């Protein structure tokens, strides 16, 4: 019987009794050749297989299991992405892990403050932005309504000469030692 072979998909092997019935009918047709043609055509007309209730139940659980696995994988990828974001945000090492909503809010603040720095703000703006909203942060909010422009290098920045440590170095104790572009 072909449905016992290893090449036959496993989840269909349980429906063997239905296939047996079909094959028996087939053999009956072949033995009584002369008068059976209309019945044979009728048998071929309906495309759907007859399935026992047990088979239907099994197929349902299989589908449910696959859907569960897919949803689990999706949630895992979502949580991984959130975890990456957590690792990259500035956070004190003794703080408990940021909750979901905390990371979302902090990420938005951090991006806004970085954008503000790049658009020619003071180098200290990142510190004051971390403590909460301030005048500079609200100014950067109005900047975000315009499409982001990459930093234009010819623009001279008014940094004090003592400013040698870029703020990015403080924030990388979690993840990287040096910022790198992830290539997808």
């Amino acid at each position, binding site marked *: 019987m072909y449905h016992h072979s290893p090449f036959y998909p496993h989840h269909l092997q349980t429906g063997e009794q239905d296939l047996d019935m079909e094959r028996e009918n087939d053999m009956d047709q072949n033995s009584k050749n002369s008068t059976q043609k209309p019945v044979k055509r009728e048998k071929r007309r309906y495309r759907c297989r007859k399935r026992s209730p047990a088979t239907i139940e099994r197929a349902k659980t299989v589908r449910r299991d696959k859907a569960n696995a897919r949803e689990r994988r*999706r949630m895992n*990828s*979502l949580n991984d*992405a*959130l975890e*990456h*974001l957590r690792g*990259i*945000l500035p956070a004190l090492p003794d703080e408990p892990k940021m909750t*979901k*909503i905390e990371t*979302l*809010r902090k*990420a*938005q603040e*951090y*991006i*806004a403050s*970085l*954008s503000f*720095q*790049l658009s020619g703000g003071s180098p200290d703006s990142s510190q004051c932005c971390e403590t909460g909203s301030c005048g500079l942060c609200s100014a950067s909010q109005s900047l*975000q309504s315009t*499409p*982001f422009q*990459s*930093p234009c*290098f010819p623009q*001279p*920045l008014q*940094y004090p*000469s003592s*400013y*040698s440590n*870029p*703020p*990015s*170095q403080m*924030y*990388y104790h979690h993840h990287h030692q040096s*910022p*790198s*572009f*992830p290539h997808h």
Partner: protein
Amino acid sequence: MEKIGIDTAFAEPGVRLSINLRERCRMHDLNEALDDLRAVIPYAHGGSVRKLSKIATLLLAKNHIIMQAKAIEELSILVSQLKRKSENLENLNKSLKPDAN
């Protein structure tokens, strides 16, 4: 954080409703924060049709932060280099000047 015992909590419909309401508020706050994050990510808010998906905003936010930090670092290096060059030029200028007095 237990207001009422576990058994009574499911018996009283009022408590169930308040739990539901709190969860709805929590989800609403979460989605609002996600929308705010979408607002600061470039090319995700320009009147284009589809809103960025959850996972896409998280990944793009991470990449954007990395890119901005790298840009800031490169800019600061460039600035310090330029400062050094301008200081050298100034020193050179001063050393050539004593005849002007």
